[in-house]
């Protein structure tokens, strides 16, 4: 048999027959259902962490493609949707870090905020919103932690799985980030409260 016949052909509908070749942990219909449930939360996480809608679009697609191609990705049937979702968020987080590291070889915590907010259409459109300006003054890592904890409702252990940080340090990092954001939000609310 010619070697190329052993490969799946996505243009001829052979893809479904060879679904196990692409994603041993998921078939087409299971993926569609999983995607329906997880795509919006993942996009929301990416757009809030990056403050860039176009980047969030790209990274979301790449995250799913890598998730499907990964040999060790959790199975929906065996490991459950929570594990699959955490794995997906982990991929997205790594892609975000890769993107931030690309322009220069420095830690993402050392990079200036302007780098993450430049040309940000989302940031511009949400400048009037309550959380938008406050988030822009936070570090990317802090935005990630806060979003995962308070928007997605992940536990410290789950956040550690997604970010790759030590579970013990999540508690302190989250506390600091929350206090910092609360201070910013209070400062934002003060002028509005004073004028009323």
């Amino acid at each position, binding site marked *: 048999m010619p*070697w*190329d016949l*052993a*490969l*799946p*052909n*996505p243009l001829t509908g052979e*893809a479904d027959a060879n679904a196990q*070749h*692409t*994603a041993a942990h998921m078939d*087409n219909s299971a*993926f*569609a259902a999983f*995607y*329906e449930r997880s*795509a*919006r*939360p993942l*996009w*929301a996480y990416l*757009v*809030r962490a990056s403050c860039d809608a176009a980047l969030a*679009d790209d990274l*979301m*697609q790449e995250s*799913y*493609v890598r998730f*499907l*191609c990964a040999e060790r990705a959790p199975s929906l049937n065996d490991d459950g949707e929570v594990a699959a979702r955490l794995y997906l968020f982990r991929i997205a987080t790594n892609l975000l870090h890769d993107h931030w590291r690309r322009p220069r070889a420095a830690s993402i915590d050392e990079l200036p905020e302007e780098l993450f907010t430049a040309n940000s259409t989302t940031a511009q459109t949400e400048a009037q*919103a*309550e*959380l938008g300006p*406050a988030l822009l003054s936070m570090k990317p890592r802090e935005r990630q932690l*806060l*979003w995962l904890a*308070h*928007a*997605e*409702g992940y536990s410290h252990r789950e956040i550690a799985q997604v970010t790759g940080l030590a579970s013990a340090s999540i*508690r*302190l990092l989250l*506390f*600091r980030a*929350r*206090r910092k*954001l*609360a201070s910013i*939000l*209070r400062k934002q609310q003060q002028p509005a409260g004073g004028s009323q």
Partner: protein
Amino acid sequence: MTFVSCSCEKDIRELIENGQWPLAAPPELKSHAAQCRTCADLVLVATAFQRARTTTLAAAKPSTAGAIWWRAQLRSRQQAFERIQRPLIGAQVFALVAVLVPIVAFIAFESRNLVAWFNSLGKLSQSAQAHAGGLSSSAPPGSAGGLIFVLVAAAMFALVAGVALYFDAERK
């Protein structure tokens, strides 16, 4: 900044995540949150994030799952192809080395004879007749066999190059 934990954090967080804060929250918990800095921060931040999550989810316009699945199939096919290609490239490199090593060894072994042969060629360039006669008489012993060896090596090289070109065309 000193880390301060509060035992009410978990309850308040659950109420916020379930959308029950502040309407369905117990009055004592609400009064506690008004006094405790840690819980007040939690309420302020978590409620803001819950509202932001609602608006962001509504703004999301993800592409279709089929398009993602198709891209993953293409990626998977490409990865499988690269896995297959790896040993082929190794075999091509091995074949190239197998051809080049004998050629280099031959040149090194026959270098002295070849220098003498080239010198005789230079002397015989004065006349066409002398050149023809000198070529046959001054050829060093064993160089005819060496030339055959070179020709065989060149043929092998051409064969390997042809195979490599074939696989390269197949890949494209």
